[in-house]
């Protein structure tokens, strides 16, 4: 297939074909990171800006490494060094950056729709690196890539997503992509963290963690979104941990070949116990590794076209 999109804003927008095309492209990039010389000239002469208005370790490093391994030049701007603190609007910041002719801008922002706003006014490719509680498309792509790698398929699986579903962009993006491929999804968390109307997305809600993970093929754990008021929705993290912390006992009731995922950063002892995080079912570090390949694919498809 031919890639036609200028931007990557939402998973909800993407067809199955598009998603698989990205995963297949990522497949061919995964090797590069294992070579001694981890660099190909594919995006030489291209410039990628990461514009992060929220803290990030994984996503930003992952994008930067992905771009560098494709020989693109990268520039990082974080909220502490941007003009936002001087009162410049996001649009003005973006227009100024555009004047320096970048090819892609990866934006992370605390407010839903911020990447869409930029996509509408800029010629550069915009990649949504996470916008508030809305979407985090590259996370869902790397999660699906990891599922395919471990399970050999991306459909017909029973997936339990556990935690603060209401405020999680990772949950939203994963629900959209996993539903698209016809998986069974169980959303689990305290009722205060389950958004109203979630059943309209074709998912099942289960408040009891034990029931939610029983016979699950995939367990996705989420952290409490403290920066989005997450702790207001529960009496205490201690109580949360008792009710929704994933233990080895839970994992033992899941499918034999269950995989446990987490987008990071993990709060050990809160939503996930050490023996699970470091246990045999955990694919958390594989997710991070695959993130680089998937983001290389996304960058390549968006800006690698005709050089």
């Amino acid at each position, binding site marked *: 297939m031919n890639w036609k999109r200028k931007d990557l804003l939402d998973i*909800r927008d993407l067809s199955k074909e598009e998603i698989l095309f990205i995963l297949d492209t990522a497949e061919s990039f995964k090797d590069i990171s294992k070579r001694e010389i981890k660099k190909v000239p594919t995006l030489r002469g291209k410039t990628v800006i990461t514009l992060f208005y929220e803290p990030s370790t994984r996503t930003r490093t992952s994008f930067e490494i992905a771009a560098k391994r494709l020989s693109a030049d990268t520039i990082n701007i974080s909220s502490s060094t941007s003009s936002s603190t001087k009162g410049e*609007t*996001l*649009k003005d910041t973006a227009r100024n950056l555009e004047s320096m002719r970048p090819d892609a801008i990866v934006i992370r*922002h605390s*407010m*839903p*729709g*911020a990447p*869409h*706003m930029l996509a509408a006014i800029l010629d550069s490719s915009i990649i949504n690196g996470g*916008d*508030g*509680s*809305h*979407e985090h498309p590259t996370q869902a792509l790397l999660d699906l890539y990891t599922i395919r790698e471990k399970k050999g398929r991306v459909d017909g699986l029973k997936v339990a997503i556990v935690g603060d579903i209401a405020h999680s*962009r990772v949950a*939203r993006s994963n629900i959209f992509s996993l539903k698209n491929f016809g998986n069974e999804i169980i959303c689990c968390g305290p009722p205060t963290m389950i*958004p*109203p*109307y*979630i059943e*309209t*997305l074709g998912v099942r809600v289960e408040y009891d963690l034990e029931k939610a993970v029983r016979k699950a093929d995939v367990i996705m754990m989420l952290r409490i979104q403290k920066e989005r008021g997450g702790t207001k929705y529960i009496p205490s993290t201690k109580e949360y941990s008792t009710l929704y912390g994933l233990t080895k006992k839970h994992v033992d009731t899941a499918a034999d070949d269950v995989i446990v995922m987490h987008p990071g950063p993990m709060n050990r002892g809160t939503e996930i116990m050490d023996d699970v995080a470091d246990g045999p079912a955990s694919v958390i570090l594989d997710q991070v590794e695959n993130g680089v390949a998937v983001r290389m694919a996304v960058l390549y498809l968006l800006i690698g076209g005709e050089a």
Partner: protein
Amino acid sequence: MKTLIRGGRVIDPKTGRDGTFDILVENSVIREISDTIKKPEGKAQVIDASGRIVAPGLIDVHCHLREPGFEYKETILTGTSAAARGGFTTVVCMANTSPVNDSRSVTEFIVDKARTEGKCRVLPCGAITRGLKGEELAEIGEMFAAGIIAISDDGRSVRNAGLFRKALEYAKTFGLPVISHCEDETLSGGYVHEGTSSLLNGLEGIPAIAEEIIVERDIAIARYVDAPVHITHISTRGSVGIIEAARKTFRKVTCDTCPHYFSLTDEATLTFDTNTKVNPPLRSKRDVDAIREGLNKGVVDIIATDHAPHEYTSKDVEYDLATFGISGFETAFALSLGLVRDGVLDMKGLLAKMTINPARLLGINAGTITEGAPADIIIFDPGIEWTVDRGSFASKGKNTPFHGATLRGKNLLTMSGGTIVFNELK
């Protein structure tokens, strides 16, 4: 000065008149309505209204003119120009100006400014509480003497139920309508309707119950003190149901809704277009259907605009940060005429909700074409198709979610108090 309006189909909901008549206006008053009126001797202008509908000038019980204090958003001149263009001859402007209209001097300023610059009649609404802070009553009697027509803390509810009770009681002295914006701020605090669209776009939601709980509360208080209460800009199925049920035993409840609440659903917010950000928010299809049904069954008495103009920069930001509000004067009537085409209301029923019903709420002599009434008249054509172009708005507020939409029905001439203030009649 005499004006003869000839050959139009005159529809007047108050008297039930519907037929082809000539209307003679002398100075600011409707002098005569007859099958045919001869052109009077001497200086007189004749307007050919044949093929058009002639109706009372529209009355808006809820708008924001932004002056004093926010002249970069709107002024009394630009706001009333937009109103005139949209077919309104009387508008009630809310108190959330800067300074707040909570004192005689601010009311006087608005009244004076409107008298010299206004293109239509401006009736200020005073604040219920000082500074709209919800802590103590504003000097309602002083403002009444200066010309307010109603009181409201629009923009928020009077959080303190005891204070709202006192406002309802105190307003009785002056016969002032109390207009209630219903919103429980401990439940709202979001940016869009909490529903299937907020689930998809991740924007913080405002649940329907944030409105409904206060609708229920304010009616209960009004019933207890036996005072009339007007619930403004209702947007949910629950609000329609509560008001319908309450009316069976307590008749002093009236309410209005706005064109965006029966024309758009929350799906419009999926594009993150900040012009869809309004409070109360655009609701679900189910709510929109209920509002239309409420209009049809007469539960919703009045259509108001909640014209809320904003400067471009306040909307040209992230959705969360954008201001709430829609610039509504220049699209309200065309959107409302859609209700007639959709069979929700007949023409007379629609016009009643925009003329005589608001006039009754406000207790003013307007909203009717009868001999001796003020010459507030519009001439419109329900068949004309036009495309909304915010650039052509008379309002400073270009914040409309209807930009580029094709609407049917257009106001062509507005006469306010005998003076033609808008004329596009060819």
